[in-house]
């Protein structure tokens, strides 16, 4: 068994003057304190990557900077799925008895450490260097392509997609650490600047500075008992040109295997934390995961299904779309929020019951998927 014994999260947005290592360190210190541990208790380190400060040995650089000497450490790179992929690995490492307490950490000064153009350019390189990148696509364009096809096949409209941006913003308004806390409407999303149609500015997550961390341990270290019930991955392609048919995407493969490994059904799930780099990402993943029928996720948003008081509260911190996206740490905020919900510490965002949570991450262009079930143990 493995337990998420502590979590740490900075605000997302601008952290002028903070380096990627500073933001990682801040989140790591919070997570270790939350677990009731000392930094010397940490014997494993898994970290993400930084596009601002790339390094071939970031985990070692971080460990030295933070002042620890782990017996196991390396970086993990799976784009947006990195946080959950690291959590899955940490789960297996502690279960296998390799280490006792793994620090999982991600953080980057992506907003103030480089220009938005530089961020966009760095991210577009997930495209094929010979057959895609020379055409000048951007990450929003890769997802814009997917959106156009999904809308075509399932009758989803731009107004439908806008609902997800509005929902995430409404949730972010309840979190003091969120990058964007001004309420928006569907009309605001529709009127926002076109980026890569059908996606407009408010369909896209922002670029942020921030850091997130958690500790994964073999045994609980205190009252908070949240265990990894089961998890699985799927990797079907890297480039959007090589993406399989919409009905054969990795999210469906990963969730099927995760359900099997956890012995959990979607009907058991009480809280959802789903990757939302763009509104289309969230709409598709909710439907791929079985949290809404094909083409019906937006109707469920309108009906309040995914709100704090709804049947399936979703990303109550505001998600990547409004809490913010700082790279590898971006979607780690989803897990931090899930942990707060599961341990009754979410304050005015607290949901009624978060006893079993489903988390899902996506990297690349729906390329790499990680599904995970967390369970609160009494």
């Amino acid at each position, binding site marked *: 068994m493995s337990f998420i014994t502590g979590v740490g999260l900075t605000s997302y947005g601008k952290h002028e003057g903070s380096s990627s290592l500073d933001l990682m360190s801040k989140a790591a210190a919070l997570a270790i304190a939350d677990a009731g541990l000392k930094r010397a208790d940490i014997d494993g380190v898994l970290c993400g990557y930084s596009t601002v400060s790339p390094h071939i040995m970031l985990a070692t650089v971080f460990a030295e900077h933070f002042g620890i000497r782990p017996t196991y450490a390396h970086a993990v790179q799976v784009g947006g799925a990195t946080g959950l992929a690291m959590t899955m690995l940490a789960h297996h490492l502690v279960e296998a008895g390799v280490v006792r307490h793994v620090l999982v950490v991600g953080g980057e000064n992506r907003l103030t450490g480089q220009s938005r153009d530089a961020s966009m350019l760095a991210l577009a390189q997930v495209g094929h260097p010979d*057959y895609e990148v020379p*055409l000048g696509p951007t990450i929003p364009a890769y997802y*814009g392509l997917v959106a156009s*096809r999904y809308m075509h096949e399932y009758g989803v409209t731009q107004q439908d997609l806008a609902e997800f941006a509005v929902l995430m913003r409404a949730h972010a308004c309840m979190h003091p650490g969120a990058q964007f806390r001004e309420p928006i409407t569907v009309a605001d999303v529709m009127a926002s600047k*076109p980026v890569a*149609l059908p996606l407009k500015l408010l369909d896209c997550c922002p670029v942020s500075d921030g850091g997130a961390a958690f500790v994964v341990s073999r045994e609980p270290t205190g009252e908070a008992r949240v265990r990894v019930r089961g998890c699985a991955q799927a990797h079907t392609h890297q480039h959007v*040109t090589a993406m399989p048919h919409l009905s054969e995407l990795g999210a469906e493969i990963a969730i099927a295997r995760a359900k099997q490994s956890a012995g959990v059904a979607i009907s058991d799930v009480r809280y959802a934390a789903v990757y939302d780099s763009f509104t289309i990402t969230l709409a598709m993943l909710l439907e791929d995961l079985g949290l809404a029928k094909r083409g019906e996720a937006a109707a469920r948003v309108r009906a309040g299904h995914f709100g704090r008081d709804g049947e399936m509260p979703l990303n109550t911190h505001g998600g990547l779309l409004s809490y913010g996206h700082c790279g590898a740490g971006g979607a780690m905020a989803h897990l931090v929020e899930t942990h707060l919900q599961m341990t009754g510490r979410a304050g005015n965002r607290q949901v009624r019951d978060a006893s079993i949570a489903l988390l899902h991450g996506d990297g690349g262009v729906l390329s790499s998927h990680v599904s995970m079930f967390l369970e609160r143990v009494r």
Partner: protein
Amino acid sequence: MSGGKLADWTKGAEAIVYQSCAVCGARQYFHRSFCCACGAPDPEEKRASGEGTVYATSLVCRAATPETRAHIPYNIILVDAAEGFRMMAHGDNDLSIGDKVKARFARFAGRLVPYFEKATS
């Protein structure tokens, strides 16, 4: 390598070239020295007709470099080629999914790129 190399737009030639496996019949657009479906070596290189059907579109209105910014808005499209492979290209801004298209070549940010227009029937 047997079969020979045909120059395509990625090398500055006005051509779209795909690979076809003599063993399993799979087609692939990203060139490799083997078939990624069955692993057989030396897939045959073939020149595509340039005919296809629009699979997806995204009109780029925000670009990240001065060279690409000069072209906005430009339409990034995925085309299902008549020969059975999918490719990314540029196309007319008013193309819709399902449109039958035909390739020509255009200059973009200092390079030659495939550019699709509606096929005249």
